[in-house]
């Protein structure tokens, strides 16, 4: 059964008041397709546990950060959570925290395995929404328990506040990817131009024409591995959501270097073979 079909059945079950069945169907839907925003939104209302509802909201926002309704709902849930923690701490002491473990652990585990906790903030920043990214980081800072995580979040807050203070213009990451893609091909073209005696129409070889797209692709991979940006490459090649995991970036970076270096190596080999057959001309009279 497809994710869409499960979503349809789940929403029908929820509308008919069969909450448990609806929940089960929608969890199956997001297990098949974690990018199913509507299923996450439904789950955010169907979960019994507050933590699970927050996670479902965060997942929906990761898919579509522009959804204002979900964001407002999430803010309400977070406020509710903070209030309940404070209340439980007051009433029950230190043991209270252990009572808010999520009931719906599969959703929780899936969420943590698939995305990092900073993905929403990072995506907001990629979209140029610095204010919202800052709010998200501040919200994360309030919720985090590990000091290392807090340090990381604090650095991001300081960095974004610095960008706002200096009024740094927003440049879309995709622009940087395209801009930086031209660097290595430009160098390759200049080397190839020298290799063919500055006359590509008379002296060029077939490998040079074939190599150019390789350098272009390699340079694109290198740029993409360096810049955090959501791209279809991460989904199509690495079957990942978001802006690429560290593993995917390293693999793409290595592939990029190979794609770039092989055509340059071919040029060098061609030069060496020419050098072997080179008859040094006699020293001119003027010397």
């Amino acid at each position, binding site marked *: 059964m497809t994710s869409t079909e499960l979503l349809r059945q789940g929403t029908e079950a929820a509308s008919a008041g069969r909450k448990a069945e609806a929940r089960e169907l929608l969890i199956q839907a997001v297990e098949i397709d974690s990018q199913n925003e509507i299923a996450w939104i439904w789950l955010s209302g169907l979960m019994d546990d507050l933590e699970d509802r927050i996670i479902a909201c965060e997942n929906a926002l990761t898919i579509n950060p522009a959804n204002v309704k979900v964001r407002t709902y999430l803010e309400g849930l977070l406020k509710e959570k903070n209030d309940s923690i404070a209340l439980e701490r007051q009433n029950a002491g230190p043991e209270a925290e252990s009572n808010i473990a999520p009931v719906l652990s599969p959703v929780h585990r899936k969420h943590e395995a698939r995305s990092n906790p900073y993905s929403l903030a990072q995506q907001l920043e990629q979209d140029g929404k610095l204010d919202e990214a800052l709010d998200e980081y501040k919200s994360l800072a309030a919720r985090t328990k590990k000091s290392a995580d807090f340090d990381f979040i604090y650095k991001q807050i300081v960095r974004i506040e610095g960008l706002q203070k200096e009024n740094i213009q927003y440049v879309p990451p995709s622009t940087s990817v395209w801009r930086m893609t031209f660097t290595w091909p430009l160098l390759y073209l200049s080397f190839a131009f020298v290799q063919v005696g500055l006359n590509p129409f008379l002296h060029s070889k077939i490998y040079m024409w074939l190599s150019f797209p390789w350098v272009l692709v390699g340079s694109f991979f290198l740029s993409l591995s360096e810049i955090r940006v959501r791209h279809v490459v991460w989904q199509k090649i690495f079957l990942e959501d978001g802006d690429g995991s560290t593993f995917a970036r390293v693999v793409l970076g290595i592939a990029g270097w190979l794609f770039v270096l092989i055509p340059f190596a071919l040029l060098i080999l061609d*030069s060496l073979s020419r050098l072997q057959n080179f008859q040094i001309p006699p020293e001119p009279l003027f010397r």
Partner: protein
Amino acid sequence: MLPLNDTEPNRYSFFPIMTVLLIVVNTVMFGLEIFVVQGDGWDFFMKYALTPTLVLNVQGAGMLADVTSMFLHADPFHLFGNMLPLWVFGRRVEDACGPWRFLAFYFLAGTSANIFFTLVLSHSAIPGIGASGAIFGLMGAYLVLYPGGRIRTLVFLPFVPVWPRIRAIWIVLYFLGIQIVPAIRILSGKGEYTTNHWAHLGGFFTAVFILLFLRPEAYARYFSDTPV
């Protein structure tokens, strides 16, 4: 006039690894060159320096000679005269680009310089050597990225050496200015061809591509009325 140092600190990286590496490689290559070159070194320079007539006739090592010529120098003064500005102007350009794209830009500037002088002096059989074309590219890039930058410069006033911090634009204009007249004289056949002024000018114009090589943060700063 001798530029000594750019006193501004790096913004994005701690250490200009590629600039230092280029200086080391150039110096080591010069050391090897002394041992390898015998006599006047005609054969050696025909193979590893860039000669316009050979390039245009598709003879010799082609792009390999283009690269190796950037690492060859005529004497210790030539080497020092190139490595000092490489340090002065290269450090912060590398900071803005990142080491690998900086290296790509350095080679692009050197190659553009070689292409330019090959086109202008197409009948010349004199091999061209030196990193100066690439370094003029870095000077141009520095001027694009840090137009208000100041360079600690040694200036020899009569009997008194002074080292004020001079705006980079005046230094670059000075070095460009002293290229133009000799370059025109060489072209008209009146000047003595001992320095590759046309390569210097060709390298300088490569600076128009520097924005492609910038790291994203530096690129955003460039268009934001804030120092890169």
